[in-house]
């Protein structure tokens, strides 16, 4: 399982879940923060506008009531000065000259009558006149020489003169910027924390799923008695584990039942077969050769029947994934050589040439008896169906973690009518003399070893059967390291 643990986390489901969760969370909090920002900014604006409107009214009132004498400028100026001290959200570091507030009184002709503030007030007045202030609420005005606009409220008096009170938006902006900075830091840390929490919890949860997957993949390939891990928590994951385990219980029961049925069927048939065969054999010994013929053929029929019984039950069990395996390490190359050794004389007698193309030992972990019978079946199949003068080439290769055994002949190929169902039970060609279990048995054995088998007719004529079986684990590992080095 080294490949699984070595997988980068960015390809895990936990990572994907956390990314999407974080994206949704980020968007959600961003919308909330933008809304809050708008709300706070508007509120600050509204409050400062209310202050401006109130103050300009007071100042207008004062200016109207104060007699137009020598003291007028001083009285109104001081009132304006006082008002400027009450500016909302004023910055703490007060500059010596307060340039964030100004007061202007203009005469009826628009000339500057009274100026309270930093500088001479000419540029402020020009900007106000250029903006042509209406009598309604405060507006923003850009004054030359100032980066930040002023918020200006105005009031007109009975004598036709006007008073203007301006407040720089600088402090207001500073407050909002300050607020935004804090919002941003807070937002970033919430998002990162959220991502971390989601990532680690989902990874933890999904690791249970991975454990279940890993355990489940071992079940069946080795032993049906294994169960997936469960936890005491009654969450969805442990429910999944429990459900899988209950399913495995049922499967194990069915498989055991199948074993019981096939065993008792085999037992019930074999005991009489044994008795009959034994009696035939003992009576064979007491007969002379002339009378032995019927007994001999009866014995041969019995042996065929026994073989058929064994193969049928094997195929039935394999179809239900219930074949009992006793795996050991097998060298297919060696096995093929001794099988060819066994079959070559028979093949030669029938005028069939055998060729083996295999260079190195190929190790698989499999049930030796079953693999022997499977390979023998493949050879029997060729021997029975190939006409004289044909040749069979056998290739043994290892590629992509599999051992691949290919039997290729230049005979007539598979009958089109049986080709579709070659590996199903009891299918055979018209000329076939077997009971049609051969290739079904091959398929059953190969499947039970997590391999696959396919058959086709070559365009150049002849049939081809390809059997793929997983290589022994150490073989796969060795190849892997050889590639890496």
């Amino acid at each position: 399982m080294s490949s699984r643990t070595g997988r980068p986390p960015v390809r895990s489901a936990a990572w994907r879940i956390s990314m999407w969760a974080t994206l949704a969370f980020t968007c959600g909090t961003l919308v909330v923060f933008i809304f809050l920002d708008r709300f706070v900014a508007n509120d600050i604006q509204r409050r400062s506008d209310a202050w401006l409107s109130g103050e300009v009214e007071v100042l207008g009132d004062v200016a109207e009531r104060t007699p137009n004498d020598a003291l007028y400028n001083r009285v109104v100026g001081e009132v304006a000065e006082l008002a400027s001290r009450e500016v909302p959200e004023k910055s703490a570091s007060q500059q010596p000259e307060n340039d964030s507030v100004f007061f202007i009184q203009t005469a009826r002709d628009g000339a500057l009558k009274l100026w309270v503030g930093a500088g001479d007030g000419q540029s402020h007045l020009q900007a106000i006149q250029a903006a042509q202030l209406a009598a309604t609420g405060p507006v923003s005005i850009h004054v030359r020489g100032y980066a930040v606009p002023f918020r200006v409220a105005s009031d007109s008096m009975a004598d036709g003169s006007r008073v203007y009170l301006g407040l720089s938006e600088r402090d207001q902006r500073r407050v909002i910027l300050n607020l935004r900075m804090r919002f941003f830091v807070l937002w970033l840390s919430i998002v990162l924390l959220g991502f971390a929490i989601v990532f680690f919890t989902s990874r933890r949860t999904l690791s249970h799923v991975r454990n279940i997957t890993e355990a489940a993949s071992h079940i069946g390939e080795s032993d049906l008695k294994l169960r997936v891990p469960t936890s005491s928590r009654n969450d969805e994951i442990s429910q999944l584990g429990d459900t899988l385990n209950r399913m495995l219980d049922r499967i194990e029961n069915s498989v055991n039942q199948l074993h019981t049925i096939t065993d008792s069927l085999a037992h019930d048939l074999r005991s009489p077969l044994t008795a009959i065969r034994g009696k035939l054999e003992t009576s064979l010994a007491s007969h002379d050769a002339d009378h032995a013929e019927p007994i001999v053929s009866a014995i041969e029929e019995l042996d065929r029947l026994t073989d058929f019984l064994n193969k049928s039950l094997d195929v039935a069990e394999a179809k239900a994934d219930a074949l009992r395996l006793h795996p050991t390490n097998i060298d297919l190359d060696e096995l093929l050589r001794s099988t060819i050794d066994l079959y070559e004389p028979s093949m030669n007698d029938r005028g069939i040439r055998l060729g083996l193309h295999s260079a190195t030992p190929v190790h698989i972990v499999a049930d030796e008896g079953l693999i022997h019978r499977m390979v023998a079946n493949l050879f029997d199949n060729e021997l029975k169906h190939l006409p004289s003068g044909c040749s069979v080439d056998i290739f043994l290769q290892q590629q992509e973690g599999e051992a691949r055994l290919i039997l290729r002949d230049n005979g007539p190929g598979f009958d089109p009518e049986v080709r579709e169902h070659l590996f199903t039970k009891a299918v055979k060609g018209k000329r076939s003399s077997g009971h049609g279990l051969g290739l079904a048995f091959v398929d059953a054995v190969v499947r039970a070893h997590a391999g696959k088998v396919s058959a086709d007719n070559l365009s150049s004529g002849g049939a081809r059967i390809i059997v793929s079986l997983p290589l022994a684990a150490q073989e796969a590992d060795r190849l892997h390291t050889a590639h890496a080095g």
Partner: protein
Amino acid sequence: MVEDEHDIQAFLQQALSEAGYSVDVAPDGRTAEALSKSNKYDILIVDLGLPDQDGITLITRLRQIGVIAPVLILSARRSVDDRVRGLEQGGDDYLTKPFALAELLARLRNLLKRNAPQGSELTRLRVQDLELDLLRREASRSGQQLQLTPQEFVLLEYLCRNAGRVVTRSMILDKVWGMRIQPDTNVVDVHIYRLRGKVDSNGQMPLIRTLRGVGYVLQDR
């Protein structure tokens, strides 16, 4: 012999007596245990499916009461039980039903031989005028060298070691090719036919005989 099926009991008893063994038959585990206490047997044949208990349980109990004789297990079950495999490694053997008598007798002989003191390993085999040199892997008949392939030599050696006794096709496949298979073609017959062509040529008395339905025998007289 512990076997509950009457028919199997009958023919086995007859065949074993004919082969020169004296046989006591027990139909169930209890009788077998009682017999084992009062007699000392050289070998036990135990059927796995007994009416009163499991064959394996019986063997374990017999071992507990001090029976050391080797056991040949007869099984009608399809696949060989893991527990039987365990016993097999412990020096016992098994045979699945139905079986050829020749195979049963061969396995009995093997088990008895395993228990008997081992003689020095033979380097030459001699059956009538057939002679095998096991070291140089050469065979000759009446002094005439036979041109055998290595596989044919192994086959002939196996037949010689069992001279006078019947060997079945599946015994040959198992011992010579190391395969427990039942080919539905005549592959073994072709090998025997070729070997016979080399051994029994020139009008000499044929040594390798085919017993149809049973197997082959290399005649030793």
